[in-house]
């Protein structure tokens, strides 16, 4: 009887794919998926369409609770991991519970990255990462006509598209560093700027924000070196940061993500990372890479699960992202759908 306990931290695409894969190949092991959010697995990439009203909340959900019951996967929602003790094979939850594991897949995804210089304004921003965030935007957008977007990651572009279909005025302040994992350069800047302008977005070239003042609940004044913008709401979109603060004492090496090899192994036996929180050295681009997006995350989740079970799968970590990236630089963008 296989009594191993495999724990997956993260209830997103990578975590769920990993859990399903584990169950498929290991019918008897204990599987626990721990998700920090209180809602069941949904597709975060569809949130802009949800905001625009094109999709209902139910359209976002991927698997019903019965799936977990049927597959005997313990799903723990709304529970947060605060520490991983690899030597003792234990993880610690925020409510002071200690869980033993035999295998661990870290699939925590990312959280919005707010650059240090904007952190003082964080309380004035609305993030867009989770379903509750999207619901907050829906509430807000009922009351306002214009939005300022600072940054320029994939989410911001999809969101801009949603805002335009809702008839909102969009100001867009493109700032470098927003395009992680893609390195920002003049070509990308021009291409993004051009596309956005064509769509009717008012692009404001990279400027330093001098101050942001909240005039009222639905009115924010943003001062840059040369302009003063009055907008209804403001959001910073600088991509995601791996949500790995809880690993600080784990001994795992973390840069922009948890550093793993091409088989998604961390430095520790039986501990893997997959999805947006995994940073893999990619020989193709001769650089580290964090695969973003729903499809990549699922692929990585699957690969991590197979390797945890003893396979030797090399994760197809970067190809889709990079090719898209190449398309962007050549043609329009990796938001070609935009």
């Amino acid at each position, binding site marked *: 009887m296989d009594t191993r306990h495999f724990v997956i931290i993260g209830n997103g695409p990578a975590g769920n794919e990993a859990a399903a894969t584990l169950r498929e190949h290991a019918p008897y092991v204990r599987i626990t998926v721990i998700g920090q959010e209180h809602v069941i697995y949904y597709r975060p990439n569809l949130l802009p369409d949800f905001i625009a009203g094109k999709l209902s909340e139910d359209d976002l959900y991927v698997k019903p609770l019965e799936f977990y019951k049927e597959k005997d996967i313990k799903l723990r929602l709304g529970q947060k991991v605060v520490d991983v003790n690899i030597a003792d094979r234990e993880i610690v939850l925020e409510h*002071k*519970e200690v869980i*033993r594991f035999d295998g661990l897949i870290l699939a925590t995804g990312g959280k919005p990255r707010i650059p240090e210089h904007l952190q003082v304004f964080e309380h004035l921003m609305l993030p867009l990462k989770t379903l*509750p965030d999207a619901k*907050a935007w829906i509430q807000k957008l009922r009351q306002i006509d214009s939005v300022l977007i600072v940054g320029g990651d994939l989410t911001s572009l999809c969101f801009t598209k949603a805002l335009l279909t809702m008839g909102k005025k969009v100001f867009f302040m493109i700032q470098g560093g927003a395009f992680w994992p893609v390195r920002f350069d003049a070509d990308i800047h021009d291409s993004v700027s051009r596309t956005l302008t064509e769509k009717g977005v008012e692009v404001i070239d990279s400027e330093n924000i001098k101050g942001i003042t909240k005039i009222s609940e639905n009115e924010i004044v943003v001062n840059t070196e040369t302009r003063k913008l009055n907008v209804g709401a403001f959001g910073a979109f600088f991509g995601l940061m791996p949500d790995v603060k809880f690993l600080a004492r784990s001994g795992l090496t973390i840069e922009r993500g948890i550093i793993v090899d091409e088989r998604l192994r961390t430095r520790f036996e039986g501990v893997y990372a997959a999805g947006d929180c995994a940073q893999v050295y990619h020989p193709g681009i001769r650089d580290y890479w964090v695969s973003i997006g729903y499809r990549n995350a699922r692929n990585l989740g699957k690969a991590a699960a197979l390797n945890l079970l003893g396979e030797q799968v090399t994760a197809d970590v970067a190809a889709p992202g990079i090719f898209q990236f190449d398309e962007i630089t050549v043609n329009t963008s990796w938001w070609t759908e935009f």
Partner: protein
Amino acid sequence: MPKVDITVEVCGMAGDGTIAAGGLINEAMSLGGFSVLGFDSYPAEIRGFGRCVTRSRIGTNSIVALTDKTHVLISLDDKQSISRVPFLAEESVVLFDNQPPSYVSEKESLAAEIEPGTALYGLPMADLATSAAGTSRGRNLTALGAFAAIFGVRPDWFREVITGKFRSKGERILDANLKSFDAGYVYAQKTFGDRLRTVFSIVDAAATDKNKVMLSGNQAIGTAALDAGLRFYFGYPITPATPIMEFLAKHLPEHGGRVVQMEDEIASIGAVLGAFYSGARAMTATSGPGFALMTELTTHGIMAEIPAVILDAQRGGPSTGLPTKTEQSDLHAAVFGGPGDSPRIVIAPTNVAECYHLTVKSFQLAEKYQTPVIVLTDFYLDNRVENLVMPVATELEKADGSVYPELSAQNGYARYLDTESGISPRSLPGMEGFEYVATGLEHTERGQPDYSPEIHMKMTEKRFRKIYSALADLPVPEELSLDGELDVGVIGWGSTFGSIEEAVYTAQEKGLRVGGLKIISLYPFHEREIRAFMSKCRHVLIPELNFAGQLANLIGKLHKGDVVRLNLVTGTPMSPAFILARIEALLQAGVA
């Protein structure tokens, strides 16, 4: 208007303030105009490692019973609460302390046990209380604050009942409790922003009666005794009857009466008989073990025809048994217990309001029929709280029930005169010319000891006749019936009847031909009415909290066929769902 019917449970360890928290929920929701029925269970040990659970069913419609399923579990001690997880309804809510003092393993963790469909709300209860009030003792109040915020309960209701509860303990303690409550409320509003529910805020509670008070069965009994002009309470503490003594110890002296703690239950019943003998209303309350000790002197009351009011608050038995668990297993002891042919009056209320009215009535009955009256309650009824408009006894209900002799009978006074009803006019000490000997020996109409066959035959028959004649004054069984024939008739008594009522009405709503019959007077019982009800039922079901079916034994012979017994001795109340399931099973069996 949307309907609400949810069950909230607070679970903790002795010392966590579980019972207090449950009480405040009941009070606050009652203040808000909701119907509330609450019930606590706590450990048998006075101070130990035991689990405390309070359950409150809160609704917009009237509530007569607790259900099995819990919609909201407020955990003040996760290790204790784990055992409550199986009772959680689907899509329930669990509030728990996410910063307990120590780390726990997966096995001991509440969060590990719950299904993903249950929404977890964690808050650092002790830390919040400490930050707000400087002490962690108000952690239960922070949980209530969070409960109020999450479910859209007006915080003012809680603040008012907290103030009511703690005002007498001084400004500092009141302030600490209010601050702890507010800390939980504010924390939940801030932290659970997008997960707040509007359960209570969208209900117009003004539509329901706000003049209701929360009253437990024991409080109702105590209040009734005061209203009935009780002069003496004699007793010896025992769970679950002690709260009656505590209540009276506090209030009876204010009304000119006295509470005396006796050396044991034998002394207690003796004193009650003595007081009544001299014309003063007196009572004692006990539970099974103490009730057994009273047996001999109870029959002395029967023999000497001295009134007495004895309350037996049943608990799990035999012997010391399950002191803090509920059971209806003293019925046989109450009806039949004791030496000889000793008919007595045994009545059992089924809800808090009846606890009040039947207690008042018991004094009159005792006086009129000059016999001990045994009121049977149980842990679930004594400790249950219901909100109701404060019952008030009428002058008629409170009036002296005694039949005194005509002046003409002076000097030739026969204390035990054999009348048509069997009731002999009663004299009190000091009534000149009406002196008599009260004896436990068999005696003549004049009270002289006499063991002749004729006298014993005659007087025994007289005492039975007297008790049967009481049927005229005893509540007639009440039907919850549809007209016409019934597929299932459910008969019940005592604390279980609320669940029967809910099960029957639910069955009727489902279109089933099911009726119910409530029996308050257990001895003597209304044979004709019971038989009439049974005769229109295809099946007679008798649910009760004892092993063999003591009511079924008592009245089962009145049915043409066999009655169906539904028994439970888990120490916990029987739920409506449990009864409904049996009804449905009977119907299916009937179909097949």
